[in-house]
């Protein structure tokens, strides 16, 4: 199983959440809000492009709009492969968290 980095996972989840409206601006806003930190343009696009190289996300250019000075948006979606990796990753994490969760609880209680 390939390990997804934290950044990558967050970005992919964000894309899923945005459901078809995931492009630079929206992704950045959602991620910044969710993590509480302001992510820069570079911090968004860099991992996104690497994910695209790996085939975990794909993108298409939308039509140009006026507010963007006549430029198109690049809309991202998660691929099948990306979904599978996310799910696998989640499973692993859930497993790990489970054992820890119980443990920590008991520690904190006692």
């Amino acid at each position, binding site marked *: 199983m390939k390990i997804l980095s934290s950044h990558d996972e967050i970005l992919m989840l964000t894309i899923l959440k945005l459901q078809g409206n995931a*492009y*630079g*601006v929206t992704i*950045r806003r959602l991620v910044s809000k969710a993590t509480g930190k302001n992510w*820069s*343009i*570079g*911090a968004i*696009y*860099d991992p996104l*492009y690497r994910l695209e190289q790996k085939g975990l996300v794909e993108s298409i*250019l939308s039509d*140009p*709009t006026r*507010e*963007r*000075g006549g*430029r*198109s*948006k*690049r809309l991202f979606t998660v691929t099948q492969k990306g979904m599978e990796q996310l799910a696998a990753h989640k499973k692993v994490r859930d497993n790990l968290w489970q054992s820890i969760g119980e443990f920590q609880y008991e520690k904190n209680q006692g």
Partner: protein
Amino acid sequence: MKKTRDNTRFPAVTYWIFSRLLNQYTEVPVLGDLQEEYFYLCGEKGPRFARFWVRLQLIKSLPFLIRNLIYWSIIMFKNYLKISLRNILKQKSYSFINIAGLAMGIAVFILIALYVQHELSFDTYHDNADRIYRVIQEKPGSESVGKDKFATTPPALAPALMQEFPEIVSAARIGVLSNTLVSGNEKNFIEAKVHCTEPEIFEIFSIPFVKGDAKTALNDPFSILLSERTAEKYFSSENPVGKVLNLGEKFDFKVTGVFKNMPENSHFTMAVVIPFVTYFQFKFGPGALTEWSDYSSFYAYCLLREGAVPEESEKKFPVLLDKYKYHGSNIDRSRKAKYLLQPLTDIHLHSGVNVPISSTNSDIKYIILFSSIAFLILIIACINYMNLTTARSVQRAKEVGLRRVVGAKKSQLVKQLLGESFIFTLLALIASLFIIWLTLPVFNNFIERQLSFNPVQNPHLSLTVVLIILFAGLFAGSYPAFYISAFKPVTILKGAFKTSSKGAMLRNILVMVQFSITIILVIATLIIRDQLHFINNRDMGYDKEQAVVLHVGDAGTRKNFHNNLETIKAELKRNPGILSVAGSKRLPNNINFNPVNILPGKAAGTYTPIYAVWGDDEFVNLYGIKIIQGRNFSKDFPADKNGAILLNETAAKTSRWESPIGKEITYWGNRTGKIVGIMKDFHFHSLHSPIEPLCIYYEPEYFDYLSIKINAHNIPQTIVAIEKVIKKFSPKHPFEYHFFDEIFERSYRTEQKTGKLYGVFAFLSIIIACLGLLGLASFAAAQRTKEVGIRKSLGASTANITLLFLKEFVKWVFFANLIAWPVAYYAMNKWLQNFAYRTSIGIGTFILSGLIALLIALFTVAFQSIKAAGSNPVEALKYE
């Protein structure tokens, strides 16, 4: 309208930076995102904040942008590389020819550059090289012996220098003993040179010691130092210190030190060193130590203090000389010798002196000549490369046009075509390294040096080459890249694309020049070979065959020969294979003493210079030198022993007498000799010089060479027999023999090498000219496809058209000949003037060279022409 600051505009600078750093794929969406957010923020938080935010984004995203840039650049690079390589493989023969031509040019350039570098580096390895000077003297009136500067100085000079000149930190003298027999550890060798010098020499020059201490090793007058190589020669791997070597069968010396071999790039090297004072045990006697007269084998070197100016010291020489040498006598100032300080690093290339300490000096003239040739070859190779590339790109114009039509951006095409050009040049560089690796051994052999090329250790050269080649690649690639990509695609597809006629004329002239150079070189090579042939076949006036020569004049064993000449002769002649034996001071092909003024001249009281050598009674006959008047020296005339002389014809004619036989000449100060015979003139110098007056004194002792005429049968056996006899009379003499005809041939080694060199240059030139012509032919063929199409459709046959093309090129070769012939004639005539006896320059040579050039040209363009002529006219005209 007043210009107001538009606060709501997107910050321009930041925008610009972003757009430059983003590549094609990311540029549009990212800039769009920025714009969108900017407007939003303008509304939400005001323009000032928005602008600040954008700038902040730039800074925060910098790592991303840069990484992106690098990543994409690599991808693009790999892509271009793939496409370029594919293109190269598609045009295999063209690529191969172009790369090979350029590689060859580079290889030749590097080889010559290595040689030039090496020559320029002589003596620079010494720590104090820039402060070391040799004292030389200028003696007016000595032009007759060559130059008026001498490298030799009186033996007493060096200590005087140290005493009188405070700015001279150290001075040392070297005396050179030639041809000394050195024996030790059961081995005997004749050392060509033994250097007698002082410990100060090791302060001046950087010659590290491997064993022993440089400061004290020469304290004992009978101590001896060896170079590592010499130590190994006598003592193999044993420690030589403390062991004994005998010099000249006279004195024993104890080894007190071993020094590192002096590098090859030194103007002189030492192998065996003994103390300076001991020189006078061998020659001249101890009194000469403080002499200020000029002997012929002492040299003085000195080390100046830091910051000292040599000219200042030179000004003080006349005072010094007056004090010590001339003792304030009233010799005319103009007849006094002038002493000069010659920088060490000048010696190898700018020596210009008589009696150099070693004969390995070269001349700056050659360095300049070869450097020019090297650059010329490289430039011509680059120009050919550019020509071929351009010609090729015209053929690819269609492909380029097509790509423009399909939407390739101009910058993309430019980059790609440039990239291809660079890859070519890179491949050429690699190929040239391979060529160098292959040819370096042969090259080293030819120039008699040991050069090696390590690009890493030779940054100057590597950088120069790389820069020149990159430049060539840039130049070559830029023409097709920029010029063709700029054309409207439609124009190209229509075939209306043509290059300027100016360029074409330039190219034609260039090829013609290349062919001219080729023809000149071919003519030169042929004429040099003619001259060598002439030299070999000319009757020199003496016989060269079947003569074995032994050098027996070494200090050490020569007395064994001198005292026993008659007995040795008798022993040798007992062998039926030996016909005659003669002893002489020099051999007939090279009597290299300076002439002496002892021959009474035509005008009363005058003397003319005459070359003189001494030999025994068999010398003249052994070498087949004819006596045309009088007789040879003979034992039948015992009076000959008191002094007998043979003159050559020229001497007889130049002398005062109508019939010189019976007259007397005084030589060696106080001896007189009677002229007993006149010899037919023979060439006792090389054919460079005319035959001058010569006399031979009868002197059956004091000879340096034993010449033995042998029978042509069973030569090896005869040699063995000779060795036996020699060993009997001089067991320690290292037996080494040469055949006289080999000695003769070797004396023309320079000319032979020159001939070979020109041959190689001619060959290279042919290849280069062919490449140039090929480029031209391809170009023309591509240009004229339409013309060919029209002609063919009008009924011309393939043969007609081929002839048409060929005629074009033959025209240029013809012009090349016109230019080449006069230049070659002039140059070769001048070269031949160096020889007093020379071959004549025949018209046949010129015609032959012209024909060779013609054939080569025809061969080169034939293929292209036939291909062009055979093309289908439909193909050419279908776009009309």
